[in-house]
């Protein structure tokens, strides 16, 4: 069992991520599925991370936190964000299958980032919706 995305779909996705996030100062953004596969990733050219490991850990992290939410009686948490001295990382669920992970520095406020991510997610939901349906 597998799912696919073609060039056109991926180009559209990358356009959204570039214009909404990278062009607004986000360092690195990657879109992954809950298994830890990377759908696409973009960065501002400054630093190259080990994105495959990041993706695996991000999916695991998000999964673990979601499980914790259920245990404490929450459906899900509205914010999953880790603050570092220079770099920060933010997670956002796009649907039950996909996650948007952004890495950004301190020149972007969290509030602004959350606003931009929310907007991006609206765009991406439409592009990824057919896949989510397939998964079920």
């Amino acid at each position, binding site marked *: 069992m597998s799912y696919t995305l073609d060039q056109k779909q991926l180009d559209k996705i990358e356009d959204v991520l570039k214009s909404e996030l990278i062009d*607004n100062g986000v360092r690195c953004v990657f879109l992954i599925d809950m298994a830890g596969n990377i759908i696409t990733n973009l960065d501002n050219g400054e630093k190259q991370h080990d994105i495959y490991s990041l993706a695996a850990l991000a999916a695991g992290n998000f999964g673990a936190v979601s499980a914790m939410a259920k245990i404490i009686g929450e459906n899900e948490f509205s914010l999953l964000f880790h603050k570092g001295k220079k770099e920060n990382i933010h997670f956002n669920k796009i649907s039950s299958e996909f996650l948007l992970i952004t890495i950004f520095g301190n*020149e972007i*406020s969290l*509030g602004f980032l*959350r*606003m931009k991510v929310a907007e991006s997610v609206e765009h991406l939901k439409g592009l990824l919706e057919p896949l989510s349906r397939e998964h079920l």
Partner: protein
Amino acid sequence: MAKSSKLDTLTSELENRLDELFREDVQPVEAPPPKSSSSQPLAELKKIVLSIDWEITHEAVESFLAQIRLLKEVYQADKIVTTFLQILGSLGQYIKSNRSKAHPATFSLLNSVFSRLEEITNFSKMPELTQRKLLQAELAAYQQLRDKISQRRAADEPKPAPAAAEPAVPVASPDSSVVTAEMLAQAMADVKEFIRSEIAALRRQIKIDASR
């Protein structure tokens, strides 16, 4: 006799231990420095600024603007503080009108302007010259942001119809950009006028001091 003396020893030892354990701290706790009355009005604004840092909601932005209006009345006699508030108000209005299209640097500027304002109001003994310097620095940053916004607007192609391609964002007034530019221009005009008069006053003062 021996037993009772042992008991005495035990009791006294216990009492000593308890005394030690529950001994009151001899050093007097320093009373916190009394807050100057002007820092109280800023407390609410500070809460809002911090919350905007985490999440930009419509309610937070409205509260922010309402608070600025209130503080302008409180500080109407203080020109420097009023100018700071005007800058904050202008930034708030820009965020309200543009939401996610706002320039990312807006928020760090908001934080720094607020921090300077807080410094000035908390430290009542700050010389006016220092206050003006802080204000000028923030004004310069404000001007820079304005330039960045203009550049960005010039670089963007004029979009004929905003509605269709835009995502479902709550506030989307088609005239928002016009309103913002006007308002910024007005705020800048006010601010510039104030600066001109203050610099003139400063020059006069320097001349007076030099001639002494």
